[in-house]
């Protein structure tokens, strides 16, 4: 009976969603603001990657909110799992030494790759979120590969705070220079080079640090609730 009801509900939602999208032609341009973004990104923001210029510049306020959402998730996770520890009798099998060595050897490479991704966010398909995630992946590898690995929470939280403050201050500086919040105050430079696009790379580097630190913190918090302490 319940199954029938659920199927009916799913069919209902599916049908109406399909109806809503049935009139949307696939593969054709529906751009209105998108066109403007594509045309103005290089001359007006200096960023080669249009998605980055939208995320950090045109709709930078969204990104500030997005960073906050992640920050809140990390904070909330810490609050919810505060004081929880795995039981000492839970036996966990150690990783093999090959995995340990491999993790240690690959970690710098992965971190470097993450840094590359978020430094080149305005030039290549990448950015702070992607780069930060890759750095967190490196930390995950250390957690998986090294026995009793614990991230340095104090350092992570300082990094996270500083990066967040950088973002907000970059916004407030726009106000302080008599412009609007988050507006670019630096010269645009030559599009296509690393030092270009004004404030975008700075914000994206900050976002990268922040996201990396937050996700690493989240992973480590979750791990320490399941992992027994000695």
């Amino acid at each position: 009976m319940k199954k029938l009801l659920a199927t009916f509900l799913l069919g209902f939602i599916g049908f109406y969603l399909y109806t809503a999208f049935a009139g949307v032609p696939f593969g054709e341009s529906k751009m209105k603001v998108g066109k403007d973004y594509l045309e103005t990104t290089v001359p007006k923001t200096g960023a080669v990657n249009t998605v980055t210029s939208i995320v950090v510049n045109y709709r930078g306020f969204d990104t500030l909110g997005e960073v906050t959402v992640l920050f809140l998730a990390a904070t909330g996770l810490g609050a919810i799992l505060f004081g929880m520890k795995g039981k000492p009798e839970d036996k966990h099998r150690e990783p093999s030494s090959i995995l340990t060595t491999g993790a240690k050897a690959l970690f710098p490479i992965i971190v470097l790759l993450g840094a590359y991704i978020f430094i080149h966010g305005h030039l290549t398909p990448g950015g702070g979120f992607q780069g930060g995630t890759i750095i967190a992946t490196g930390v995950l590898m250390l957690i998986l590969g090294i026995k009793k690995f614990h991230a340095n929470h104090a350092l992570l939280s300082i990094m996270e705070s500083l990066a967040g403050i950088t973002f907000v201050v970059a916004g407030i500086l726009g106000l302080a220079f008599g412009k609007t919040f988050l507006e670019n105050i630096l010269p645009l430079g030559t599009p296509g080079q690393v030092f270009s696009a004004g404030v975008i790379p700075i914000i994206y580097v900050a976002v990268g640090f922040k996201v990396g630190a937050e996700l690493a913190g989240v992973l480590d918090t979750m791990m320490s609730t399941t992992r027994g302490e000695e």
Partner: protein
Amino acid sequence: METFYYIIGGILLLALVIAAFRFFQGPTAPDRVIALDAMSIILTAGLVMLALVFQRFIYIDVALIYSILGFMGIVSIARWMEKGI
């Protein structure tokens, strides 16, 4: 050149489908993970090829990241299976 791309792409697609067969068949969890591993490597190769087809150098980054994520996925599943986390 276009025919070459089609042939290579066809071979990759075939490989992907065959590996997916093992993924759905199982019978044990590690079997599926092996299939997943193979599929992720085939996809990495496919992504590099797509970069060539579209002539966009920047797409190679995507392949690089995809290979890292695939590797991490497999290691995570493996460590989970031996109750290591």
